[in-house]
């Protein structure tokens, strides 16, 4: 191995770039060189790649020898055309594969690429080659297949100084899924997770001569709230990893495609991993502390001001105090204004706008107070002071806002004495006055009048009666609908009356009139007793009536009437009775029958 390396040592590196064909470059041409790894082991291979975007021409790049590495294959060329939204873009790629020969640093020099009349330069690339761990190496964390490390940004911080801890996963096998249920317990710390993209990016890294894929699973910002040796407990993760079913000593291909469980026959397993606990030395802030210091650590600016400087007494005025900068925002309070006598102050409206930027909290906190001056004159409010511990200079710094002054002019009218707790609407209302009395004529009503008066009850009772009547009517009509006999019986009186009326209207004394009267009586009896009256003769009628326990006199009268009527009809002259006489007789009999049937 070393032999080959020596052979190559003396050779110089040469990059000769030929430009072939006519340049038909269009649009923006971009040339980038890249390596597929930053850190590799000796005997491992890696690829150097030159990509040309926006040109049709394949630049010819020849790479000479470079120290500590040897060319394995190449150049490989590939072209790629894509059409997106009607725009054509082309990409040409030239790649070389090298093998690492010796440990050490390798620098790929800047490559000049000439396309058309233009010359493009790539960035220099660095590669670290490390030697592989010996077989009888020391037992380190590196011997583990998968492990999780908590990496603090500092091991010693001041109270209130942010500390970033990255939880990094090292793995030699494939990891398909991971889950972190909660942040670790950290007594004496205030913690906030820095949000990261859903999927952590895998980065190849060599630890003690062993190649690992690494990924930062979580980044947490810790703010110590007290001094001393504090401990951040291990982070617990649940990983779904690839487990080898048959032990293989070396991996032939370092390619995720072939390492896929589909090819290797490996299976997935869920395992729990703990990170290492962290011991953090938290220093207390230096003494003596300024009187007004309230625990703010970082770098801050304070501003304070009124929205207007000239107001009338009893008018509301806004006083805003804002703190901006970076530091332990979440645990600090804005200074409160000290007001002279004669100004009422209401609960402030608070607006926080704090983001995590560059591993620390930055932004602003703002309080807007509503002041209502009750006296007139020139009022001076003490400047707002804010003291914090500056981490850069390791000193306490006090920032002061400008002078706050307002001119209050006399307002008319007396105003209420105000205590705290008014809403904005109420403060607005305060600037108004009581409205004047009503002098227009108004309607007087008796105070003791009950609203549940006679008309009220009348309406409701009538309404319910109407409803009851409607339902009763509906019930009755439905009953008749289904029962023809009942209908006939109910209509019998009406029918008989109608026939009598019709008879009265007939002007002439005729046979028709007598038939009508006959029909009236027999029809009524038939309807009431539910028989077909047309099939009965007079004696049968008489029997029917007797059967129904009718008084003898009525039965007799009926018999006499019907017989007389029949004789008058069929043997004219036998009974001498006029039409009107017959009608009144019919009516009489009908009334009697009605009473008993």
């Amino acid at each position, binding site marked *: 191995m070393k032999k080959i390396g020596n052979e190559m040592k003396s050779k110089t590196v040469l990059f000769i770039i030929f430009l072939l064909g006519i340049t038909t470059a269009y649009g923006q041409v971009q040339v980038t060189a890249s390596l597929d790894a930053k850190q590799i082991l000796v005997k491992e291979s890696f690829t150097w790649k030159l990509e040309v975007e926006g040109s049709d021409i394949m630049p010819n790049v020849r790479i000479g020898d470079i120290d500590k590495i040897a060319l394995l294959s190449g150049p490989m060329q590939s072209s790629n055309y894509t059409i997106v939204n009607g725009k054509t873009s082309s990409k040409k790629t030239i790649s070389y594969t090298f093998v690492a020969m010796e440990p050490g640093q390798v620098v790929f020099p800047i490559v000049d690429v000439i396309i058309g009349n233009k010359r493009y330069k790539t960035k220099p690339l660095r590669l670290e080659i490390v030697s592989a761990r010996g077989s009888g190496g020391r037992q380190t964390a590196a011997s583990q297949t998968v492990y999780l490390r908590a990496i603090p940004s500092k091991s010693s911080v001041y109270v209130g100084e942010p500390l970033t801890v990255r939880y990094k996963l090292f793995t030699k096998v494939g990891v398909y899924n991971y889950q972190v249920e909660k942040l670790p317990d950290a007594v004496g710390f205030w913690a906030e997770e820095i949000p990261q993209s859903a999927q952590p990016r895998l980065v190849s890294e060599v630890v003690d001569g062993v190649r690992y894929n690494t990924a930062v699973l979580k980044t947490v910002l810790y703010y110590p709230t007290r001094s001393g040796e504090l401990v951040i407990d291990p982070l617990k993760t649940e990983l779904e990893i690839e487990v080898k079913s048959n032990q293989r000593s070396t991996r032939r291909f370092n390619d995720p495609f072939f390492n896929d469980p589909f090819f290797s026959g490996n299976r997935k397993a869920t395992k729990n991993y703990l990170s290492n606990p962290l011991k953090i030395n938290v220093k207390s802030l230096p003494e003596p502390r300024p009187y007004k210091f309230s625990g703010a650590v970082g770098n801050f600016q304070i501003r304070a001001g009124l929205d207007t400087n000239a107001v009338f007494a009893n008018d509301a005025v806004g006083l805003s105090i804002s703190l901006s900068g970076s530091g332990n925002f979440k645990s600090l309070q804005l200074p409160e204004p000290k007001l002279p006598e004669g100004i009422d102050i209401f609960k402030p409206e608070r607006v926080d706008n704090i983001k995590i930027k560059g591993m620390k909290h930055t932004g602003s906190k703002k309080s807007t107070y509503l002041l209502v001056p009750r006296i007139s004159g020139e009022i001076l409010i003490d400047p707002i002071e804010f003291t914090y511990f500056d981490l850069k200079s390791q000193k306490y710094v006090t920032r002061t806002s400008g002078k706050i002054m307002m001119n209050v002019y006399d307002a008319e009218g007396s105003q*209420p*004495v*105000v*205590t705290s*707790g*008014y809403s904005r609407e*109420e403060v607005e*209302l*305060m600037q*108004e*006055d*009581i*409205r*004047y*009395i*009503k*002098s*227009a*004529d*108004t*309607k*007087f*009503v*008796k*105070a*003791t009048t*009950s*609203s*549940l008066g006679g008309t*009220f009850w009348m*309406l*409701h009772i009538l*309404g*319910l009666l*109407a*409803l009851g009547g*409607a339902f009763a009517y*509906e019930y009755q009509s439905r009953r008749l609908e289904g029962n023809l006999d009942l209908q006939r019986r109910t209509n019998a009186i009406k029918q008989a009356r109608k026939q009598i009326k019709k008879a009265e209207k007939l002007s002439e004394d005729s046979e028709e009139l007598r038939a009508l009267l006959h029909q009236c009586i027999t029809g009524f009896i038939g309807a009431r007793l539910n028989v077909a009256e047309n099939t009965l003769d007079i004696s049968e009628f008489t029997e029917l009536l007797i059967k129904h326990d009718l008084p003898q006199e009525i039965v007799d009268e009926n018999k006499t009437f019907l017989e007389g009527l029949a004789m008058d009809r069929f043997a004219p002259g036998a009974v001498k009775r006029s039409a009107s006489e017959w009608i009144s007789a019919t009516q009489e009999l009908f009334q009697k029958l009605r009473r008993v049937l």
Partner: protein
Amino acid sequence: MRTFLHWSLLFLLMLTSVFAVDVEGLMAQGNGHYEKGDFESAITTYEKVLATDMVSTALHYNLGCAYFSEKAYGKAILQFEKARQLSPRDPDVQHNLEYSRLFLKDRFELPEPMPFIAWFKALRKSLSLAELKFLEQALFSILILGIILSRLMRGNSLGRVLTPATIIAGVLLLVVGGWFIDRSIATNEKYAVLLVDEADVTSAPIPGSSTLFVIHEGTSGEILDATDAWYELRLEDGKTGWIIHEAVGLY
């Protein structure tokens, strides 16, 4: 005999007309005192009108204004509340009531009510007793007519429209009727407002029972229960306790 009847009738008529003039005249007299800034006399005069058992929105409102000017905020609020019960949507009454409330010592921070419930409560409050009565009677009539007509017209297109309309009227009647009965059958006076500077609210309606908290003039509460000498109140923030009759005015 007949002449006697005539005369007595005439006398009765005269009596009522004299009575009416009396109320209007007193009212004008009170307004005159108020305009001159003599609030004390205005109060006395308005109270005389109240004693006749005749009321109007303007009477309660003007009396409230007079009490307010005399810095009797509790009594002012009581009168404004009474005026509001007669005319719930009168902007002057509403303004003066809210304005007087600014002067109260007791302030309650209440959670934001649910939007729909708040709207419902506001609707209920914005209707006067007379309006509720009218609505109730109208809805009742619509319901009865609706039921009868929808049964008569069953099967045709009008009936198909009538049935859901009747159901809606019925539901509305239940709501409005409930509100109306709640306000008219039960005692009219369901709330109490403190008229004195401050008063103890106790744990029981017994003299000497322990004081739960102290309320100040103008603070009002709903009456939950009453004995001969005590009312049980529920304040806006939900606290309850007993207070003596003399300390409060009812509305």
